[in-house]
């Protein structure tokens, strides 16, 4: 299967294709409330003012370790003193009759946004709560003070320990305006630290037995991890029925059997499942919704179990050179905002996330996890004897949730239950072949979100049903996405994890100016046993797309040509030869070695020379590449050329990786024994035009 062009990705969507969590925490009805009145000192251009802020939300009376704690709708009320209204809204506000909305000068209602920094504390641990901004609308004015109110749904919290879970208020930033005016940003600091509320967390039975809280949490646990908290470990098979391979849902199960399992592979274990290996992955990219025609950034964090069952060769040395690894995935949402033109003309700002949900027909809502499959070569040092392609498939079901919508600057209250119907998220990654080289799955890859249908929305709006509006502006088919995943973080060992225990962002590159590129080097030499093939000039031609944030793998297909080549035999004979590259070769990015130096690799190098040792001899072939020696007989494989590219000088200092005289060589040339090791000369390619490559 050939890789799909990266031009697949074009435009973006307000729909963030991150698999998230079902928002229903399943906690008992609220029997206690969060309520706090806080005093803030706010700074405007005229000075400081004291502002009162009230926060209220229903809280569950108790919580369990590993189970998400979801507050009820959080109400925010900000009392702006009369002395502040002039600074913020620009005109002195006359006393407004009670019950009427004030009209500061322009005859229109003020509105704004409140951003409250809230931290969660439990024991000695503290982390950001990640509360969203609250859209504020003007309420009544009394005694000269203007009350502005808002409400929203705050992210649930999954406690990992027993004991008191406390919400602590920090700084407040108000962004206030009236229609047609510029926003006024008002920073505020609390007069003293304030606890908004607390919930007592108890142990579950499993954690009391010594289990790991993260492993006993529901699907919410994985996706609701706060940014400051390490990425959770989703449990292995058999621990929680919500985490498992789904072989019942037709769409999810399809990737388990398509493409078909190659012949000659055996299942391990024969029945049941292995624990597999847990990973956390951060992926970022862009998505498009056909109707909106705008690129929107998307960000996804995924937890997965890889290899809970595996199909591998019955004979790893002589058997089918394929391996199939199966596992399951659970993704976490990173709510993102997008600014788009709905219907092509309405400036709309919205935050949205995708929430991973069970399949529509799941009897008991289990499992919630999607399916994962990695299909690759078992031994890259043996030639493929079945398919050559290395691929990754992932499928899950999601609902798209919209919130914090504002149209033309006016908040549109879509409520906290505005979501689409369930739809299938189908992601695919092509990870290479012999000529492109192979990606190690845990090094990260580019994932295509294949045609995504955004279903109709429901539950949108508070006083009126806004669902048809969202459906009309977003829903439909032919939506795509392209994400780059960073190195897979191992949450159990910490390998490839950032300081917060999450996967690193992908190491993407930006290339300019792009275009058709020619790289030339002088003086290639392939020598063995006193004989050599030398060429005056080596030329590589390829086309680079000028792109931001592109993946490093498979940068360009390259054409190699060689001129001025001759065979010098140890007996003193010199014969001109035509040397050529056999098959496709690809240029691949490895990593940024420094600000100026980029590591590159030309993959798929197999050199072929047609030789006529004398007038009386038939033409024979002299070939060079890599070789696989075990098991015998020795087999030809492509080799590669590694290089360090200096973006300032435009030079690639390169050398051929291990090269051997190919066993497919038909010439009998002293010194060039088939399967013999070949010594190669270093090469310095000059790149024209010089390409600037930076990260990201």
């Amino acid at each position, binding site marked *: 299967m050939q890789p799909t062009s990266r031009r697949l990705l074009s435009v973006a969507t307000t729909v963030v294709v991150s698999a998230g969590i079902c928002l229903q925490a399943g906690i008992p009805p609220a029997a206690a409330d969060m309520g706090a009145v806080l005093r803030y000192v706010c700074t405007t251009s005229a000075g400081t003012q004291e502002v009162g802020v009230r926060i209220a939300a229903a809280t569950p009376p108790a919580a369990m370790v590993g189970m998400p704690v979801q507050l009820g709708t959080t109400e925010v009320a900000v009392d702006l003193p009369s002395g502040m209204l002039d600074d913020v809204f620009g005109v002195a506000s006359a006393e407004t009759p009670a019950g009427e909305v004030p009209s500061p000068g322009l005859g229109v209602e003020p509105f704004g946004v409140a951003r409250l920094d809230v931290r969660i504390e439990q024991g000695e641990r503290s982390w950001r709560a990640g509360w969203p901004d609250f859209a504020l609308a003007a309420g009544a004015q009394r005694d000269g003070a203007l009350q502005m109110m808002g409400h929203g749904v705050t992210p649930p919290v999954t406690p990992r320990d027993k004991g008191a879970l406390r919400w602590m208020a920090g700084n407040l930033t108000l962004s206030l305006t009236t229609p047609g005016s510029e926003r006024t940003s008002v920073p505020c600091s609390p007069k003293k630290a304030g606890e908004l509320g607390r919930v007592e967390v108890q142990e579950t039975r499993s954690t009391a037995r010594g289990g790991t809280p993260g492993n006993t949490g529901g699907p919410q646990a994985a996706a609701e991890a706060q940014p400051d908290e390490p990425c959770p470990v989703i449990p292995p098979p058999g621990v929680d029925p919500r985490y498992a391979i789904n072989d019942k849902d037709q769409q999810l199960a399809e990737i388990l059997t398509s493409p078909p399992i190659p012949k000659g592979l055996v299942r391990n274990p024969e029945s049941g499942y*292995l624990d*597999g*290996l847990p990973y956390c992955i951060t992926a970022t990219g862009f998505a498009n919704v056909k109707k909106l025609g705008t690129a929107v950034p998307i960000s996804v964090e995924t937890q997965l179990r890889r290899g809970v069952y595996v199909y591998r060769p019955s004979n790893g040395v002589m058997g089918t050179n394929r391996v199939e690894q199966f596992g399951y995935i659970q993704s976490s949402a990173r709510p993102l905002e997008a600014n788009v033109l709905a219907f092509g003309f309405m400036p709309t700002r919205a935050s949205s996330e995708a929430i991973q949900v069970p399949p529509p027909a799941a009897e008991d809502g289990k499992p919630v996890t999607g399916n994962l499959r990695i299909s*690759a070569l078992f*031994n890259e040092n043996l030639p493929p004897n079945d398919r050559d392609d290395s691929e990754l498939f992932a499928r899950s079901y999601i609902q798209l949730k919209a919130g914090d919508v504002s149209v033309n600057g006016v908040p549109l209250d879509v409520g906290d239950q505005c979501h689409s119907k369930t739809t299938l998220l189908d992601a695919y990654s092509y990870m290479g072949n012999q000529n492109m080289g192979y*990606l190690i799955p845990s090094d990260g890859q580019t994932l295509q979100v294949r045609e995504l249908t955004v279903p109709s929305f429901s539950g949108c709006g508070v006083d009126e049903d806004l669902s048809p509006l969202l459906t009309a502006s977003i829903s439909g088919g032919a939506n795509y996405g392209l994400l780059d995943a960073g190195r897979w973080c191992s949450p159990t060992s910490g390998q490839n994890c950032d300081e917060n225990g999450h996967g690193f962002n992908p190491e993407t590159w930006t290339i300019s100016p792009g275009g058709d590129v020619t790289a030339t080097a002088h003086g290639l030499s392939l020598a063995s046993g006193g004989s050599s093939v030398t060429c005056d000039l080596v030329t590589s031609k390829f086309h680079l797309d000028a792109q931001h944030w592109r993946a490093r793998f498979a940068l360009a297909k390259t054409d190699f040509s060689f001129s001025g080549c001759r065979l010098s035999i140890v007996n003193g004979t010199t014969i001109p030869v035509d040397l050529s590259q056999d098959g496709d070769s690809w240029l691949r990015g490895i990593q940024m070695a420094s600000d100026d130096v980029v590591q590159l*690799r030309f993959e798929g190098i197999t050199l072929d020379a047609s030789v006529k040792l004398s007038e009386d001899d038939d033409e024979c072939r002299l070939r060079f590449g890599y070789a696989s020696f075990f098991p015998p007989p020795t087999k030809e494989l492509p080799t590669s050329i590694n290089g360090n590219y200096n973006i300032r000088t435009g030079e690639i200092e390169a050398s051929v990786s291990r090269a051997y005289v190919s066993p497919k060589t038909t010439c009998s040339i002293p010194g060039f024994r088939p399967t013999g090791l070949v010594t190669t000369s270093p090469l310095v390619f000059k790149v024209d035009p010089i390409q600037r490559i930076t990260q990201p």
Partner: protein
Amino acid sequence: MRKLTRNALTVTAVAASAIALTSVPASAAGTWTVSPGGNISGSNTRPLTAVDTTTGSPVVCDVSTATGTAQSGSGLSGDGIASLTDVQFSTPGNPNDWCTGPVGIVVQVTATNLPWTFNAASYDSASGVTSGSLTGVSATIHGSDECDASITGPGGAPGTIEGSYTNGANTLGVTGGNLEVTTVDADCDPSLIGVGDQVVLDGEYTVTPGQTITSP
């Protein structure tokens, strides 16, 4: 339970035996002549391959080097005729330059229980080939999937590799032996490596300076 992993590394053993220069007595009671002897180094002429024959999992190292010493002179015993003090394995271009395992895993191979000792056993004067064994061989392996395993002889004792050195070509080929997987940790995928799995090697080294080994 186990996780995805890689497999046994017998590459170290391959390298070790590849480097070992042995003078082999023509008979059990024969003596050996090594010239010039002294400090020796070796580099592989083809990839070192180790295969877990139980699971079929391979580990391939493109580059291996070793250093040691060989005895010099005549009337030498075949036992301990040479020793290896350092052995290294890598595949430049892989992450960390580690060797290539199955399923995209890369593997760090570390020779342990050095120095290893080469013992000459027999000599074929017609072909100039000395056959012998490298003893004291053991290694540890660490995979990019966090699997850690050890390779030794049976029961955890140091292992043995067989090899043959060719005068003139100055090459040492390695094969066979009694190496097996002795320990694995919880990160190791049992479908790739397990305790008791047998390991076979394949490799060839060029020895520098070239040695001439005969018996007597």
